[in-house]
């Protein structure tokens, strides 16, 4: 499966299938509810590699993710539009759009055994804007 991540804010961050290794999407609902709860949230966890540029290629934009994670809450730029696509066999399996996403966690990990670093980004949609979240998928891409 291949993934595409696009983050649109003051600047645009695009990460492709070479970088992203996994995507986890979770709907957060209190599990002790007796009937459908209004307390609804959604979380996306994205894991990937931090690659080193070789042969004069431009550096990947994972550093921009780290910078986004550090934007203070007072700055409007902390909310960005995130699109996550899952692609397999020329089919768009999923396309998630979070128009007001913010970072709740960002981690980078480096060791002397690997040639690449890894990152984990956890984002949430602003809870009062949950109705704007869209889920599409199941169509072929040209």
């Amino acid at each position, binding site marked *: *499966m291949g993934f595409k991540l696009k983050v649109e804010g003051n600047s645009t961050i695009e990460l492709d299938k070479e970088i992203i290794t996994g*995507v986890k999407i979770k*709907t957060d*609902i209190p599990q002790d509810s*007796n009937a*459908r709860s209004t307390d609804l949230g959604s979380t996306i966890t994205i894991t990937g590699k931090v690659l080193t540029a070789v042969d004069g290629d431009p550096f990947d934009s994972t550093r921009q993710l780290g910078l986004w994670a550090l934007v203070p809450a007072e700055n409007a730029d902390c909310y960005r539009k995130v699109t996550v696509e*899952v692609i397999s066999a020329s089919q768009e399996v999923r396309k998630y759009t979070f128009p007001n996403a913010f970072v709740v966690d960002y981690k980078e990990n480096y060791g002397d055994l690997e040639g690449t670093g890894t990152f984990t980004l956890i984002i949430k949609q602003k809870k009062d804007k949950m109705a704007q979240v869209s889920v599409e*998928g199941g169509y072929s891409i040209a």
Partner: protein
Amino acid sequence: MGMRVNIEGSETVSLLETSITGVRVGADIPLDSNARSTDLGSTVLIEGKILAPVGGEAADDTSKLAKWSLVPAEKADCYRKVKIDVVSASQIVRQITVPNAFVVGYEEDFTDETGAGTFKLLIKQKRDKMSNLKFEGGFSEE
């Protein structure tokens, strides 16, 4: 064993044995009760695969599950009728009908190492409608 899940609401979701990998059904009763408690609930966990359509077939219904998990509590459509069939050797081992089910947890997991994603759907029967839950089985498949 094969498992089939059918969900009826504003739209019908039908998932067959090719996509469902596991079903767990349980009764939620306070474990610290001294005598039979009236506080009775039921939770159903459904696990399965998110398959990418090949050869021009239609996409599976899993994206409808993701959309159902995001339906706000103010809409009647957040409660749907769920029917689970456990089929083995042309026998219906169990047929569980949860007529007023709502979502308490939904997760999707995709990695670059597998060709199919996975989902986990956790649903509950509306607590005040527990008597409508049907637990049947032990008859042959028509």
